[in-house]
């Protein structure tokens, strides 16, 4: 059996399919609307939402720290943290949108598939970073929220309690991250896989696998 023997088979299959269903070019514009909806547009729209929510978060942060500039305390620090978080959301959204904008479907296949895998990876990493940081972010968000809504500085009665609570959350996240790094560095694949399953799901792994497939095809 030779590969060239299959050229006729492909043509016969195509003729058969042509008889069964002609390609309906007349519906192309309707298909274009539907096709683009199911393509990259929802992801690009999601980034706009991320940028808008980031801007709102940054504004809340600014309002909190700006209002306490004369007597900097808990709400001032919390405001700066919330502001920085909002800016990070805007940056993530803008970077992913820029990656999407760089995709031209008429580009060489390997290049476009590599770009698409990068977009997917950036999207998943951004989601993870923004989501995971809420393990500690709820504290400054709550402090800033109480200050803006009720004018109350909930840190003032016991600053050390809030400091230790924040430090504890950050330390817990750092410990998880370090443990993951140690497991990866020492080749403990079962632990790394369990982490990936628990935290990143299949999406990041799939984006990584697609990037690796594309690189392998290019290299081999």
């Amino acid at each position: 059996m030779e590969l060239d023997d299959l050229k006729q088979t492909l043509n016969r299959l195509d003729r058969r399919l042509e008889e069964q269903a002609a390609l309906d070019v007349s519906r192309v514009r309707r298909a274009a609307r539907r096709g683009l909806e199911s393509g990259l547009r929802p992801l690009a729209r999601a980034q706009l939402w991320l940028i808008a929510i980031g801007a709102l978060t940054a504004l809340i942060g600014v309002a909190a720290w700006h209002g306490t500039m004369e007597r900097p305390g808990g709400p001032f620090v919390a405001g700066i943290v919330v502001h920085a978080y909002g800016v990070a959301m805007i940056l993530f959204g803008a970077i992913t949108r820029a990656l999407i904008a760089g995709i031209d479907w008429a580009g060489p296949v390997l290049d476009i598939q590599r770009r698409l895998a990068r977009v997917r990876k950036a999207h998943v990493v951004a989601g993870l970073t923004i989501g995971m940081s809420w393990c500690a972010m709820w504290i400054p968000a709550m402090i800033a929220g109480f200050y803006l809504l009720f004018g109350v500085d909930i840190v003032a009665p016991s600053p050390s309690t809030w400091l230790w609570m924040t430090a504890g959350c950050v330390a817990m996240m750092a410990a998880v991250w370090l443990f993951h790094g140690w497991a990866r560095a020492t080749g403990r694949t079962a632990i790394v896989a369990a982490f990936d399953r628990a935290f990143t799901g299949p999406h990041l792994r799939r984006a990584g696998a697609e990037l690796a497939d594309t690189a392998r095809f290019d290299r081999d």
Partner: protein
Amino acid sequence: MATQRDRERFSALIRQHAGIVRKVATTYCRDADDRADLAQEILAQLWAAWPRYDEIRPFTTWMYRVALNVAISHVRGVYRGARHFVPLADEHLGIAATPADHEARDELRMLETIIAELDELNRALLLLYLDDRGHREIAEILGIGESNVGTKINRLKQRIRARFASPL
């Protein structure tokens, strides 16, 4: 905004090369509904990319690039769940004109088996080769070196020879 003339020219070119859309859809989807969805998605992206088409470049190269990019993303489920390639849909076996046309049936089965065993990028290479595209055009479509195309095709041939050295 596309003019009426643009639309007519686009439609004429697509009709002339409709086989590309059909072959790509057939290579990446076995299920008839899924295949129709993919064909429509390819047409949609072709229409969206049409204003940027540079007429000094070959239309088939441009069309193949868009069609393969959409098909690979479709199979990889870039923004939906991943789709699984199900080889050997019964309707495809109907290619054999009569029940006695065992040779056509066997060859189709082999083609289906090969496609199902290849990853998305090698599947694109196989399709382009079987559709008699030259090495230079394949290199331009995939974005790899021309010499690399020859090496990959030779590897593909060896792999298929080895795969079908023993009966299915």
